[in-house]
């Protein structure tokens, strides 16, 4: 026992210089920065000594050409450096690996630019771009947002007051699944993007340095949205626990607000021609879609099993809200389509256009379905006629089409829009 205690105390008192894996402390050129002149050497500094591995530091040009020589280590072994040939104007990717004093390999990637902005790490040389798994994860993310935002919106804007024990339970189950899903799927999306940027085998990826990715626009959105949805999860839980439904209001507004993270980190914020208006349109498009699909799910799975008077009231009120949502959805969607596809022919000439056509086809189907509900079912309900037996199945069908639209949207978001045409110089500049 004494021996064990002595070992424990000794371990507590041991020097801790090598207590963890080596961490990259700074680089030259600084990562993510623009420099004006080509460096002759790329240096990486660590917080502890590291061993050089074969091809420890590789510098690639935009086309993936290797531009670096043999890696050297400093005398204190805390820095490694690699000579590079003269780098012309362009974006460059540095991929590095080093063995920590504990023998574990740490690795990472960063970018820098010579006489131009550094490319984002997600566009580093060697990164393959979004995969099918990323499409599916983004779709899942949209679905969880629809369950969360649409569920809360439906509860607060369409059906107010208590739903009875069974209804409350189903409502909180769906919204809870939405917020937990948003957190889990958000982490998964970040890791998939990181894996693509780092291009490492799985075990090395576990020790891959994710910090350059966290500093990108996508990474910032991930950080803010994860923290935001953790807060939303707490608010939804407190509303359920204390039966204080007014707590759902801040949860709803925060969930809606933090969904803007996607708009502020996607095409509408980063691509040529983007502005605050495109970001706003993107957020409105996403919010309206989430409210519409999530509302349909609530109507089919939470309200329909409850008493008929509540179903009738909820259907009529949701029908009014859905009309507004469709107007917003279409308005914002048309604006964004024109912005990203300046020529009509891009619809059939470009891959992005093909996906957009599929999405438009699905939207048309959903609109027709919604119109049938609006013009055939709604007047019946307003007249007080008995509820049709097929309505729940029809609502589920419309929800399924809505989810398919979200899948097309996920592929669209991950696809690259065609390049914007070069703006002609204005007359005054031309005259000069």
């Amino acid at each position: 026992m004494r021996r064990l205690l002595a070992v424990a105390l000794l371990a507590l008192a041991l020097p801790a210089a090598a207590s963890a894996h080596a961490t990259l402390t700074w680089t030259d050129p600084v990562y993510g920065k623009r420099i004006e002149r080509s460096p002759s050497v790329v240096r990486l500094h660590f917080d502890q000594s590291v061993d050089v591995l074969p091809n420890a530091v590789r510098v690639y040009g935009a086309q993936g050409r290797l531009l670096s020589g043999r890696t050297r280590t400093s005398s204190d072994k805390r820095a490694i450096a690699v000579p590079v040939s003269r780098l012309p104007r362009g974006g460059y990717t540095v991929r590095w690996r080093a063995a920590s004093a504990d023998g574990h390999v740490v690795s990472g990637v960063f970018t820098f630019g010579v006489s131009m902005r550094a490319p984002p790490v997600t566009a580093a040389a060697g990164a393959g771009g979004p995969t099918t798994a990323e499409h599916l994860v983004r779709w899942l993310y949209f679905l969880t947002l629809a369950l969360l935002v649409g569920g809360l919106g439906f509860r607060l804007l369409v059906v107010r007051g208590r739903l009875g024990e069974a209804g409350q339970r189903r409502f909180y189950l769906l919204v809870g699944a939405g917020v937990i899903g948003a957190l889990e799927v958000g982490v998964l999306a970040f890791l998939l993007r990181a894996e693509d940027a780092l291009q490492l085998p799985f075990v090395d990826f576990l020790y891959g340095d994710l910090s350059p990715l966290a500093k990108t626009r996508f990474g910032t959105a991930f950080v803010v949205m994860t923290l935001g949805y953790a807060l939303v999860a707490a608010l939804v839980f407190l509303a359920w626990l204390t039966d204080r439904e007014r707590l759902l209001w801040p949860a709803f507004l925060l969930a809606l607000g933090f969904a803007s993270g996607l708009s502020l980190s996607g095409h509408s914020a980063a691509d040529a021609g983007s502005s605050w208006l495109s970001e706003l349109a993107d957020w409105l498009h996403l919010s309206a879609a989430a409210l519409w699909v999530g509302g349909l799910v609530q109507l089919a799975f939470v309200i329909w099993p409850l008493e008929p008077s509540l179903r009738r009231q909820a259907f009529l009120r949701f029908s009014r809200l859905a009309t507004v949502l469709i107007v917003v959805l279409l308005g914002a969607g048309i604006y964004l389509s024109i912005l990203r596809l300046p020529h009509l022919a891009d619809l059939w000439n470009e891959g992005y256009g093909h996906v957009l056509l599929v999405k438009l086809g699905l939207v048309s189907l959903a609109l027709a379905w919604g119109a049938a509900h609006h013009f055939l079912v709604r007047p019946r309900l307003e007249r007080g006629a008995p509820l049709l037996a097929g309505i729940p199945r029809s609502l589920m069908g419309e929800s399924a089409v809505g989810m398919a639209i979200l899948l097309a949207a996920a592929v669209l978001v991950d696809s690259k829009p065609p390049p914007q045409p070069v703006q002609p110089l204005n007359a005054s500049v031309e005259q000069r």
Partner: protein
Amino acid sequence: MQPPAEHVHWLFATGFLLLALCLLGRAIVGDEVWNRRAWRAYLWPSLLFGLGILMWPVMVFFTNSTIHMLAHGAWAQTMMLAGAAELGLLRGKLHARAWRLCLPLALAVSGVALLIHEQNGWYFSRAAFLHHALGWTALLGALFPLLIVFRPRARAWGAGLALTLVVVSVLLYSDRDVAPVFGHLSPLAGEPHR
């Protein structure tokens, strides 16, 4: 702008110490006396839930490796789950006794995450030793809340859980590189490198 990792560990050590003191108080005076005031009954599960919320910023801001991020995510979620389940049971929102298994599950998952995220052997360094000790303490400590599920009135298991959290707290206070709490006692603790 990021605080050093050890400061974050000390913050959570303080949280676990408060949690342990609540549970120790409850184990000493018994459930009936402890729960006589409603706020006291809600104190420790709320604290646990709050610690879970606070773990999310740690997860997203300390991204120096994937495994580090995943482990912190696991701790955030298990603490929130265990705190939420206990609060739900107290409030009468949850009825099934199986919800009481969330606390032992949280400790077991946290222990496993600690052991997986530390890849070095026990005696490699102070931090490695502490991570192993923390992992096994959490894993073995999960037995106490598991026993409480079957014998809710046995004070010994409640005291065992509280003491487990005291040990977790002490180990967290001792963690990391420049911990002056222990490190300043001896030059053998090494020079601060930050």
